[in-house]
């Protein structure tokens, strides 16, 4: 009896609810619709329309035509894609190393999903913090877990026992390891300014002192915030470039360059395994965008909007109950992530990819040094302006 009442049921229930909400209601649909958005936005950039006439695929269940009572504008396309991945033949070639072949897609998808646990996607909702795991080493947790994502690609290329996947995976491995260095180092100025690695504290600091990258959004910026804006801008640029490299997105697309390597490290994969790689890449994009939003753009904070407990913001808005502002904060966070995802897609369809030696030079000679110097610059400004 004592044991049962000592189990923190409420905590477990809230954690489960937040996890289910985050993964199944927010992130997985977002991943599918990011694929759809990429197809549409890339099409519009290339002077054509993307998929704009998909109906609901009920012809699988025996209906004559797919159902489309009014024009959905192609929004049924991700559902059709999901159905395709489920029904396709899952072909495992005879020449692969079976254990690692089956393990690799999981290792590509899982770290991206696990890193989402530490991100505060909202402020508060009925007294509960809107973050699945409010750990006080949140930033280190994210860097550590996203490093595991490299193993998915290494094992995929290695186990495929084939030329092109091998080449793609060794390129990707070296690329991801090189850019992890500058990614970690370029986030250190943010740590120095906010004084904590806990992502919740970083967002709270930005709520009080204005967004790091846009100091006028929030409190009135003093001379110190304006001066700190320079190293923060450099940190943002290096962090974003490293984030592009970490998620294997153009211009760092070499591991999966369609023109050179057939399909790179996921050549030998079909159906659901390929879907896991594909969705894992987009989930990593979403996790990366969420991290950039938390570190540089103020997380769920919008100037003038109170947080989920009813504090802050403009005074007359306190009439509306606090939990509605909790939902508004979640919406603000998702909107910022969507803007960053659009920028990811926009950059992909603008730039040509880097050559391999240019890529490694950029990672080791330029970004690494710039991130290091930036740390000293931030520390100097912080020390001399207090």
């Amino acid at each position, binding site marked *: 009896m004592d044991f049962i009442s000592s189990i923190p049921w409420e905590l477990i229930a809230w954690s489960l609810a937040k996890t289910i909400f985050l993964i199944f209601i927010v992130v997985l649909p977002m991943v599918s619709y990011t694929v759809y958005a990429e197809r549409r936005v890339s099409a519009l*950039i290339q002077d054509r329309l993307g998929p704009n006439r998909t109906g609901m695929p009920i012809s699988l269940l025996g209906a004559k035509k797919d159902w489309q009572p009014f024009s959905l504008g192609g929004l049924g396309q991700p559902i059709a894609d999901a159905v395709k991945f489920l029904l396709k033949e899952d072909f495992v070639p005879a020449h692969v190393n079976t254990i690692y072949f089956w393990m690799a897609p999981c290792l590509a998808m899982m770290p991206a999903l696990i890193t989402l646990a530490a991100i505060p996607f909202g402020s508060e909702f009925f007294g509960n913090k809107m973050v699945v795991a409010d750990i006080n080493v949140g930033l280190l947790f994210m860097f550590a877990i996203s490093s595991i994502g490299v193993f998915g690609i290494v094992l995929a290329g290695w186990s495929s026992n084939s030329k092109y996947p091998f080449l793609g995976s060794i390129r990707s491995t070296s690329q991801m390891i090189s850019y992890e260095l500058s990614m970690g180092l370029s986030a250190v100025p943010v740590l120095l300014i906010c004084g904590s690695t806990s992502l919740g504290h970083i967002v709270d600091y930005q709520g009080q002192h204005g967004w790091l990258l846009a100091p006028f959004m929030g409190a009135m910026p003093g001379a110190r915030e304006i001066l700190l804006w320079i190293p923060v801008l450099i940190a943002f640029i290096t962090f974003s470039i490293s984030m592009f490299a970490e998620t294997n997105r153009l211009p760092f697309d070499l591991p999966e360059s369609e023109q050179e390597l057939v399909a790179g490290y996921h050549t030998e994969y079909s159906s659901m395994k390929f879907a896991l790689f594909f969705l894992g890449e987009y989930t990593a994009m979403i996790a990366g965008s969420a991290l950039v939003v938390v570190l540089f753009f103020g997380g769920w904070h919008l100037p003038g909007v109170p947080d989920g407990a009813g504090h802050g913001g403009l005074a007359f808005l306190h009439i509306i109950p606090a939990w509605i502002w909790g939902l508004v904060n979640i919406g603000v966070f998702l909107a910022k992530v969507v803007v960053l995802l659009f920028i990811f897609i926009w950059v992909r369809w*603008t730039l040509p990819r880097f050559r391999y030696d240019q890529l490694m030079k950029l990672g080791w000679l330029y970004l690494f040094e710039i991130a290091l110097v930036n740390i000293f610059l931030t520390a100097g400004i912080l020390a001399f302006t207090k």
Partner: protein
Amino acid sequence: MAYVVPRPNLTWKEKIYLPSIVAGLFITIKHLKQMLSGQTKVVMQYPEEKWDSHMPDHYRGAPTLVKDEHGRERCVACQLCEFICPPRAITIKPEEIPAESKFAKVEKRPKEFEIDMIRCIYCGLCEEVCPEQAIFLRKDYAITGTTRAEMKHDKAKLYELGGVMDGLVNKWNPKK
């Protein structure tokens, strides 16, 4: 022997690459905005918008046989189109026109004339080579069927699709 490739000297702006990234981003966002605002009109949404009403005169659609204004089928089964057809889509079996017919002077007509539309490449060589102005490519491009047998157009179907054409050269005038 080491050959040093002459590379251009880059300005500092080109070296850091970021200004040209931003310039490129502006170009692509301009394309996006022009598509969204409807300024770029390059896309024809196919089943809703078709260009059947304003196709060019020389458009090569499906080949058909024509009859002239006297009701005579123009084809004399010379088999020139059968021999020139690159994918060999045309199959002709000629026969004699019986002596009691009005057009007995012509002497030859096709007993069977079949074009396999799956093989046809719409090149128009049969129309070019025909000495009798009997075979013409019309403007119909969406030839579909549910079986392979359906896609072989026989003589009746070809005359049905072709119809009657006036103003063609009459080589078989009985007076001359």
